């Protein structure tokens, strides 16, 4: 088709315009009626989704990818900064998925946040976040990507601290900003390195000119950025703390879109990484460590949102492992499928929380299978997809990753950790389902349980369809760029499945113990998991204390005390005072004093005379 590129370009621009327009109307119109959020924003996202399907289908049909460069923004001699959008496979696939998930979440949020007086502002924040995310994903140069990066960071801060009167929410928002800031240092370092060494921030130019250079330094910067944004081990505590925000925020930001921004950055810049074994090994080990560590932490959590948060962190570690395996396409596939079921899990948890009158502790839930069947069915579907049940969405990406891991000649330790984490994923998912759905209710009798509302069931159903079908659709539509290993022994092929079933079985067996008296097991074994590996305890106390103490030492003691008290004015004062007192205290009125001084001086002079 000769005008394919025009259609693609135009539909993408229309998508963007549809997304941006509610922001402008909210500025122009002073008073917004109560239903503005539903009428404008949710509708805008829905329309944008349908509009973005057009580029998706065109891309799947013809394989078209294009880059739109609009505006020559600024230049410093030969260094140009433009606004350009790259619509390649990654962004064309991701944008509709993000819009679909956001549409479901916004519809859910119109019920969840109904009693909030600032609901219009909430939706506007979510929309601005979405725009920033789209900017990040479609960026063709690092500058635009950085704009999107910082945009999602700021919106995450605002949205986590939505209930800002709550002290925990404020500290959680601050924690998010600080940890991501550490990652941003890496990103800015990489930006600087690329500006000075590669002379461009455009992706195409970077891919070509980086072939011959030693890319260790910028890649470490990128990995640091991904560690901060995607909550890898070392900069991970902000993600469980971010559950202080409302459930739609957790669903959108901290499950589907924002935590994958770091991984997306690495996927986007994977041509730079594919020849650098150091960076790849770093990713591999970091990801394996993250996935196992957070899975262990998730095993003993009692807050339903925290379980899902840790599972997000664990899946993001898995994505990092995939990048370390030099399989960016599989990581991207996992990003897309993960978005569906994780958002659905969060939405289900939101329904449960509201239904039980803001109860988030799974030890106080139970038997909800009979009371809110749609929600719990979706919870089960989401958990099964998370575990990698065959032919649900998670299977296509997760199983492919485990196969690639098993067939590679890389680090066996990373492999072992990842397999262990996979089985433990099944365990904590089962624990969550067991406590929430099964057995008898443990909550007070008069709970406002109601799911007969269209705003709840429609998003859940849409996301459930997505969870079931997305993996299949995506795998069938596009051939993977790297050919996967197709022949392997059966035990390798079935590893993921066997491990998952093993974890599931053991967890089921353990679940039978809950209503029987067993000898009491000492809690010492659980402390590592319940204290989140002691990481927040150590890090959040040690570093602030050290820096504050150091600054106090430098500021008050080294500068003020030293210069003003010990060497400056106060010393002179005290010194002179003591000398003055000594001098005037010699006079006691005795003649002995001056006579003896005279004779002593005389003797000294006489003695000195003979030398």
């Amino acid at each position: 088709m000769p005008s394919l590129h025009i259609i693609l370009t135009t539909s993408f621009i229309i998508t963007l315009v549809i997304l941006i327009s509610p922001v402008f109307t909210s500025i122009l119109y002073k008073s917004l009626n109560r239903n503005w959020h539903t009428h404008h924003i949710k509708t805008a996202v829905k329309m944008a989704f349908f509009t973005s399907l057009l580029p998706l289908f065109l891309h799947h049909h013809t394989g078209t990818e294009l880059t739109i460069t609009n505006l020559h923004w600024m230049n410093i001699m030969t260094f140009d900064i433009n606004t350009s959008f790259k619509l390649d496979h990654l962004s064309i696939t991701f944008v509709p998925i993000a819009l679909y998930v956001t549409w479901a979440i916004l519809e859910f949020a119109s019920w969840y946040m109904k009693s909030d007086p600032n609901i219009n502002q909430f939706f506007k924040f979510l929309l601005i976040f979405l725009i920033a995310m789209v900017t990040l994903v479609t960026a063709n140069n690092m500058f635009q990507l950085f704009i999107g990066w910082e945009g999602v960071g700021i919106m995450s801060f605002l949205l986590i601290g939505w209930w800002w009167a709550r002290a925990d929410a404020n500290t959680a928002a601050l924690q998010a900003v600080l940890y991501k800031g550490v990652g941003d240092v890496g990103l800015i370092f990489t930006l600087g390195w690329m500006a000075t060494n590669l002379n461009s921030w455009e992706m195409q130019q970077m891919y070509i000119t980086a072939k011959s250079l030693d890319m260790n330094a910028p890649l470490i910067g990128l990995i640091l950025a991904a560690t901060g944004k995607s909550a890898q081990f070392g900069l991970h505590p902000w993600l469980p703390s971010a559950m202080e925000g409302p459930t739609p925020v957790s669903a959108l930001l901290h499950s589907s879109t924002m935590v994958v921004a770091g991984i997306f950055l690495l996927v986007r810049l994977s041509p730079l990484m594919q020849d650098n074994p150091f960076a790849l090994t770093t990713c591999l080990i970091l990801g394996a460590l993250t996935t196992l560590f957070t899975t262990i932490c998730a095993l003993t959590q009692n807050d339903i949102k925290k379980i899902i948060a840790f599972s997000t962190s664990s899946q993001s570690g898995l994505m990092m492992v995939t990048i370390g395996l030099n399989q960016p396409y599989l990581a991207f596939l996992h990003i897309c499928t993960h978005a569906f079921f994780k958002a659905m899990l969060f939405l289900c948890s939101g329904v449960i929380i509201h239904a039980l009158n803001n109860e988030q502790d799974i030890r106080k839930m139970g038997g909800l299978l009979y009371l809110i069947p749609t929600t719990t069915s979706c919870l089960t579907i989401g958990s099964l997809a998370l575990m990698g049940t065959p032919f649900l969405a998670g299977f296509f990406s997760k199983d492919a990753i485990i196969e690639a891991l098993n067939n590679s000649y890389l680090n066996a330790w990373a492999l072992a950790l990842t397999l262990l984490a996979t089985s433990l994923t099944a365990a904590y998912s089962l624990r969550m389902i067991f406590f929430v759905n099964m057995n008898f209710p443990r909550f007070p009798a008069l709970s406002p349980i109601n799911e007969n509302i269209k705003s709840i069931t429609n998003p859940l159903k849409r996301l459930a369809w997505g969870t079931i079908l997305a993996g299949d659709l995506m795998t069938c539509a596009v051939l993977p760029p790297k050919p996967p290993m197709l022949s392997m022994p059966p035990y390798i092929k079935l590893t993921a499945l066997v491990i998952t079933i093993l974890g599931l079985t053991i967890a089921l067996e353990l679940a039978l113990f809950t209503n029987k008296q067993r000898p009491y097991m000492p809690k010492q074994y659980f402390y590592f998991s319940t204290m989140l590996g002691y990481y927040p305890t150590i890090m959040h106390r040690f570093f602030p204390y050290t820096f504050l103490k150091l600054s106090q030492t430098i500021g008050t003691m080294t500068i003020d005390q030293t210069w003003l008290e010990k060497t400056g004015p106060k010393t002179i004062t005290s010194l002179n005072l003591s000398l003055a007192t000594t001098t005037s205290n010699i006079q006691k009125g005795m003649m002995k004093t001056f006579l003896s001084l005279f004779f002593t001086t005389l003797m000294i002079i006489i003695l000195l005379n003979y030398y």
Partner: protein
Amino acid sequence: MNPYLLIVLLTSLGLGTALTLSSTHWLLAWLGLEVGTLAILPLMAQRHHPRATEAATKYFIVQATAAATLLFAAFNNAWLQGHSDIQHMSHPLFTSMITLALLLKLGLAPMHTWMPQVIQGVSLNTGLIVSTWQKIAPFILLLQIKQIHPPLLTIIGLASILIGGWGGLNQTQLRKILAYSSIAHLGWILLILQHSTALATYALLIYIFMTSATFITLKKCKATTINMLTTTWTKAPTITLVAPLMLLSLGGLPPLSGFAPKWFILQELTQLNFIPHASIAAMAALLSLSYYLRLSYSITLSLSPNNLPECLQWRVNYPISTPLSSALPAALALTLFLLPLTPSALTLII
């Protein structure tokens, strides 16, 4: 005091110094010094209270010790050398002994401890004489002795300046403050003595003018402690106006005449490359300046807490006329305005 007695004593005082100034033989010099000492003793003890008696006794013992040492060293030198000329002494040991004796007479560190006690014990007029007139004779003798060990004079000079500074900081009695100030000024004089006698003489002269002005001012105010200075504004407002300038001249601030000796001494020392001496002397002058500032603060710059009606001058037509009060304008003028005349003054002395 009986006026006949007063005339005899004052004449003897003048005679003693004149004898010393005009002598070339050590015996005559010693004689002049002794006459001066004996003449001032009744002046010091004229009040007959224990403080004055004690001051007189101490003064006599100090001066006698110094004179005895002087005589002993002079005779030894005469025996070894064959003559008793003041200006041709060559034996280093006895030169040093004589120097030390003269420094004890002048009241320089480390032999200064008698000065504050003596000057505190006597009245302000007698203190004036002790501080100014009695310094002339030993100073002239010091000028004439050649070949004094240079470090001796330097160390004693610097020590005097420092001790004069530190000692005065802790005092509230005005006479003691002036004693320490005299120690400090004599330290300055001693510092430059071996390098330029003209400057030393000029410094002594300016010191005499300044100290005289101060003593006479204090006599007029009848103040002997700092607290008594605070009512000066009621008794003599003109003095209240001028006193800070006078005290700052003692401290050595331009454009007052007390600045000239310090300035030239520092210049001379610097030209001769005695930088550490000059630095220490200059910084130690700040110590003295601090207590002069305290005095000027009490006189002029502060008012004790009182209410509005008391701010008026409440002693009117107070006849303040002491014998020395006619000398005050002259002394004050010399204290304040002599700086522009320094070059011609120096040529007079050289």
